[in-house]
């Protein structure tokens, strides 16, 4: 078991959506500033800033941390971490390791993406294509969506999963999103809307994928020692497990298309670190960028038997206060998907649930929560397990 010496002491998040008037640096700064305020620490306490981002923004500023920190009037060192759509969780994991190393006591993690500048759909498809095998999938004509279409077909063929079961995923997530003040879409959507939409890569319809958007999310991590020395800190949520695993980048190199091996492997390690079992998890934020993503996640994370994911969603077992509440935030689908910010937004949702601050989204009883953040078609998956809030003093 890993030494429990990493805690989330504060969170900050911007509204997710189209934010034409704000630059990427400013957006990131808003989330970071809110996280610092929420932590009740001085900004000078932050020793380093880990930025998770896939492309940052249309100005191609790779060192987006520089813009963010200038906007925030901070002078820490910074690093941008890229792991495709899982860049947020990747930055979080690196900061976690930084704390456990003993070198740092207080770190900021910021996830940021600004995608509304890319007004042409084709450009975002191109950005997303960098998360699949560029030479042997993308250049041969595949898109991220078309590969998820193949994952969907594989599951439908193997387990008789239906389009109706798949459509229940975004229906549920949009229902959850109604109660999330930062979500891009806060309205319910009927199942017919999904089923009758034009197919963009059959069987995936136009409204099935999560929508890319602008957004930033930040958390402040601190060690036990730091928390003891900073009396104003009033909340600490322990990070019980944090792991990631990889798989072959190209689908055609994988042994199975009905599971995400990286999710299973990363989850197994995270459960071991936390010394808990899948059934101990009460709430999870999983990568539902496509409906099949959530079905695969709830199976590969061990919440349901392989092949039972579709039925579980259909029967409401993943609804708020179901057997396990999945994507109470609305998920990527309703909250919107600013790639790098998504992994941090997931952690913030679980943190709020553990703190009892999730408002109408709050689940009735909670000990453990989990996040799963996926790059591309699952070549890299990050899994984090957070535990019950240990309120200081």
């Amino acid at each position, binding site marked *: 078991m890993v030494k429990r010496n990493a805690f989330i002491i504060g969170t900050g998040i911007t509204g997710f959506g189209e934010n034409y008037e704000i630059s990427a640096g400013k957006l990131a700064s808003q989330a970071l500033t809110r996280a610092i305020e929420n932590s009740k620490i001085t900004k000078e306490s932050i020793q380093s800033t880990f930025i998770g981002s896939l492309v940052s923004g249309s100005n191609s500023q790779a060192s987006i941390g520089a813009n963010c920190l200038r906007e925030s009037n901070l002078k820490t060192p910074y690093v941008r971490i890229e792991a495709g759509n899982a860049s947020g969780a990747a930055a979080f994991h690196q900061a976690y390791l930084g704390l456990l190393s003993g070198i740092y006591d207080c770190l900021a993690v910021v996830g940021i993406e600004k995608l509304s500048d890319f007004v042409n759909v084709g*450009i975002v498809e191109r950005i997303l294509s960098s998360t699949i095998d560029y030479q*042997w999938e993308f250049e*041969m*004509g595949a898109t991220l969506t*078309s*590969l998820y279409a*193949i994952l969907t*077909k594989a599951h439908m063929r193997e387990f008789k999963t239906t389009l109706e079961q798949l459509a229940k995923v975004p229906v549920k997530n949009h229902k959850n999103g109604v109660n999330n003040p930062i979500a891009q879409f806060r309205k319910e959507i009927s199942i017919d809307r999904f089923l009758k939409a034009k197919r*963009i890569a059959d069987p995936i319809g136009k409204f099935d994928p999560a929508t890319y958007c602008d957004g930033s999310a930040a958390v402040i991590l601190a060690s036990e020692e730091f928390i003891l020395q900073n009396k104003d800190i009033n909340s600490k949520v322990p990070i019980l497990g944090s792991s990631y695993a990889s798989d072959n980048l190209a689908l055609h190199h994988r042994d199975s298309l009905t599971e995400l091996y990286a999710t299973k492997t990363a989850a197994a390690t995270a459960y071991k670190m936390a010394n808990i079992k899948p059934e101990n998890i009460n709430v999870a934020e999983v990568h539902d960028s496509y409906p099949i993503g959530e079905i695969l996640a709830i199976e590969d994370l061990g919440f349901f038997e392989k092949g039972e994911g579709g039925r579980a969603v259909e029967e409401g077992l993943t609804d708020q206060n179901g057997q396990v509440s999945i994507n109470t935030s609305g998920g990527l689908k309703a909250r919107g998907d600013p790639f790098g910010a998504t992994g941090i937004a997931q952690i913030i949702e679980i943190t709020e649930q553990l703190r009892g601050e999730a408002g109408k989204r709050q689940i009735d009883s909670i000990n453990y929560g989990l996040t799963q953040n996926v790059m591309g078609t699952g070549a890299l998956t990050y899994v984090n397990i957070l535990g019950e809030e240990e309120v200081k003093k």
Partner: protein
Amino acid sequence: MEPPKIWREKRGKYLAMGVECLDCMTKQFPFTENCVKCGSENVNEYKLATTGKVLYFSTVTQTTEEMMGSTPYLIAIIELDDGIKITSQIVDCNLLEAKEGMNVRMVFRVLARNGSEGLIRYGYKFAPI
């Protein structure tokens, strides 16, 4: 579309040239200097089988700008007769007639054009037999 990249990848894209490990005898694609299974450097170029069957496919109607000219098109994972799986488009096929298990053969097509003045990327696609 970068000229050195197009040049470097032509054997893979034009000829579907993979690799065969002379130690563990595994055939793989794409070409690598080391066997991805046993790590041996004792490898030879190996030309993939040019026929196979469709394992999975999807009809793509929304894609990147450079491929938009070809929509709707079929993308598939194909298992070649030598057991190697690759991702490729299926052409010369009525969209409604595409099916899993369909037998296909390798053909040579334009993969993408860089506008009207840039380079043209050529490579393999598959057509029904």
